[in-house]
């Protein structure tokens, strides 16, 4: 399984990432998830979220999640970008691409990656008011 992980303060250029997709001829499904900063966290109206990562551990934990994905489903490729630092409302903080033969495993793997990330990857949010 190909894997590409980016943890960066740069804006996530989704169109460019999509344009750069590679997919072998046996693959039939590409799923994308973009997680975008919302203006309201609870009842508070915010301007941005400041993301902090314990980066070396985050990379290691993402690697273990990708290992699990590879064992469970016939996924060809996962690309994941997590932005850190200040991410303004309406900008993406997370972008995930999963490429698979069929949509069932693509949806399952994409949801699994996000759920596992929220359980084990050391990244934290702080609202910017």
């Amino acid at each position, binding site marked *: 399984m190909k894997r590409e992980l980016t943890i960066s303060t740069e804006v996530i250029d989704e169109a460019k990432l999509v344009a750069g997709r590679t997919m072998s001829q046996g693959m039939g499904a590409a799923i994308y998830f973009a997680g975008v900063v919302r203006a309201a966290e609870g009842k508070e109206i915010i301007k941005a979220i400041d993301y902090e990562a*314990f980066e070396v551990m985050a990379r*290691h934990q993402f690697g273990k999640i990708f290992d699990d994905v590879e064992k469970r489903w016939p996924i060809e490729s996962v690309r994941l970008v997590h932005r850190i630092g200040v991410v303004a409302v309406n900008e993406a*903080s997370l972008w995930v691409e999963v490429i698979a033969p069929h949509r069932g495993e693509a949806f399952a793997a994409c949801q699994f990656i996000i759920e596992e990330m*929220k359980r*084990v990857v*050391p*990244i934290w949010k702080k609202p910017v008011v």
Partner: protein
Amino acid sequence: MTTKVHFYSYFKELTDCAETQVELADGSTIEQLYTELIRRFPKLAAMNHSTLIAVGVEYQGRSYVLQAGDEVSLFPPVQGG
């Protein structure tokens, strides 16, 4: 044995500190380290049940026996995405 400890997220604000060092007897566990940290930074005590602890890049339980050179990280529940 000297153990380096890192704090992340609002644990840095609770302790007013990103990094500290703790002197422990050889063979000490994370539980013993944690008891010493609470003595030093009492505000951590309230977070007891939601504190995650890693040694290096792996999560470890309270009974883990610390080795020389281990770097320990304490942080609240993660919130990526």
